[in-house]
């Protein structure tokens, strides 16, 4: 019974992860990744780690990949579009991935060949309270550091995504253009000519208010150098 479940979901995990890298449509790739994560979650359950399986479903399958899909659909990527950067970038990533995989396999083999088979997991070792003990008592410092790292990433993303406030807008025309390309992503945005300071250009205003409406905000349009 357990063997049959393992066989089905192990095959499913391998098969769907092949689809992830082989399929041309980003949507299909993402959806196959969901199947992969689900299958691996089932394998975690078989290994006696239901908590990790549940978290994998809740966080990766239930939240992160939904965001992936959200972005893919929002950008409306066609089904046959390749990755930005082309095959060279793909090759570099593949080599990096292969190196990491080999390293991990080596570590695994070394521990397996060196000290005999690892001790089997016990009910007590994978229990929730034990996990909490390890995480919040013994490994508290690494845990907090990881949390801090994520916080830095969140703040960084917010800084990149935020728009200028009204006061900054008022101060903007006198300021120099700190980074003329920072917000020039819109199709209507004209290329800024030189580093000349000036009033907010209509193109930027139109693009930004459009983006604002999409984001549900009512903030004034930003201008280059708005944060100067």
């Amino acid at each position: 019974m357990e063997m049959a479940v393992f066989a089905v979901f192990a095959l499913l995990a391998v098969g769907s992860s092949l689809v992830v890298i082989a399929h041309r449509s980003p949507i299909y790739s993402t959806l196959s990744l969901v199947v992969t994560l689900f299958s691996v979650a089932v394998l975690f359950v078989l290994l006696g780690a239901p908590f990790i399986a549940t978290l994998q479903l809740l966080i990766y399958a239930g939240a992160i990949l939904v965001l992936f899909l959200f972005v893919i659909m929002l950008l409306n990527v066609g089904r046959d579009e390749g990755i930005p950067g082309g095959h060279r970038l793909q090759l570099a990533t593949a080599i990096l991935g292969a190196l990491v995989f080999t390293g991990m396999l080596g570590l695994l083999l070394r521990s397996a060949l060196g000290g005999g088979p690892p001790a089997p997991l016990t009910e007590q070792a994978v229990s929730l309270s034990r996990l909490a003990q390890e995480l919040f008592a013994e490994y508290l410092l690494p845990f907090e550091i990881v949390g801090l790292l994520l916080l830095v990433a969140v703040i960084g993303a917010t800084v990149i995504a935020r728009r200028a406030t009204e006061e900054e807008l008022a101060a903007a025309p006198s300021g120099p253009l700190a980074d003329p390309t920072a917000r020039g992503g819109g199709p209507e945005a004209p290329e800024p000519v030189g580093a000349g300071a000036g009033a907010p250009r209509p193109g930027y205003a139109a693009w930004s208010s459009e983006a604002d409406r999409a984001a549900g905000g009512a903030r004034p349009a930003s201008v280059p150098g708005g944060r100067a």
Partner: protein
Amino acid sequence: MSAELADLVATAIKLGVTLAILINVVPVMLWVERRGGALIQDRPGPNRLGPLGLFQALADALKFMFKEDVTPSAVDRPLYLMAPALGLLPALTTFSVVPFGPDVTFRGHVYQMVVAPAQTGVLLFLAIASLGVYSLVMAGYASNNKYSLLGSIRASSQLISYELALTLAVVAVVIPVSSFQLADVVDYQRHHGWNVLPQIVGFLIFLVAAFAETNRLPFDLPEAESELVAGFHTEYSAMRFATFFMAEYISMTSLSALGATLYFGGWTLPWVHVEGFAGVAVGLAVLFGKVACFMAFFVWVRWTFPRFRYDQLMRLGWKVLLPLAIFNLILVAALTLAGVL
């Protein structure tokens, strides 16, 4: 019969009973929704078929089954066909962690009255429920229709946003109980009284987020018929459309059962205690009685409130509910540490 086989048979029976109840909620809710809406809007509603129009649900179901099933030619076929089923699956699965009666001893073997007595209980519920969004996203994308796609985009961001608040509210219930298993949550409430009083903030957050998670008015932005035709299911007809419909009502039922279990004592009633198989019957009746109250509330709100605007929805989710849920979590944790809860 060996113990293992007996367990398997017991699980099959429990699964059959709960699935039968869940599926039959749909026609009942169809009738409640239409007659309830009529009552609130002061009109007769469907009253021609059978007493009180009760057979209207049957007629609606038959209509869905025998209508022509149109599959537009430009759709992404595999995803288009898969989407409705994938919506129904998580909705039906989540109920399996909700307990519905006292332990029963039969031929010297104790059976727990929950389909899946998983160690991670309520987390598993939330995890599986969060997979329901893929149905909406796939349906909208595969339909190859801009209104459907807009509905899907809305669905994915809306469900993610409210899932956070919902999860944090649920975790606040788990802290004083110190177990993820819903049976322990029910047990805790037997000794300490219903959670709804000490956890009133969490309950309100749960309630509001439940509307968003099940795409019910006032938060039915993914299908907003005045803006997006019918949102993600614009291109669906006949039984495929009805499957989305069923998924919505069944996920409402499951979420109501979770709410009743977390905040209103689940299958128990204060001062009432029946053992054995009779206890299971009473437990099921009590649980679904509480679920019925939740469902009536869903219907009441639907026909009373206008739809939110999308930016209002996002502001409420991220700027009100999420901070409130975090605050509630910290407060509950502090009170538990202090020994109050």
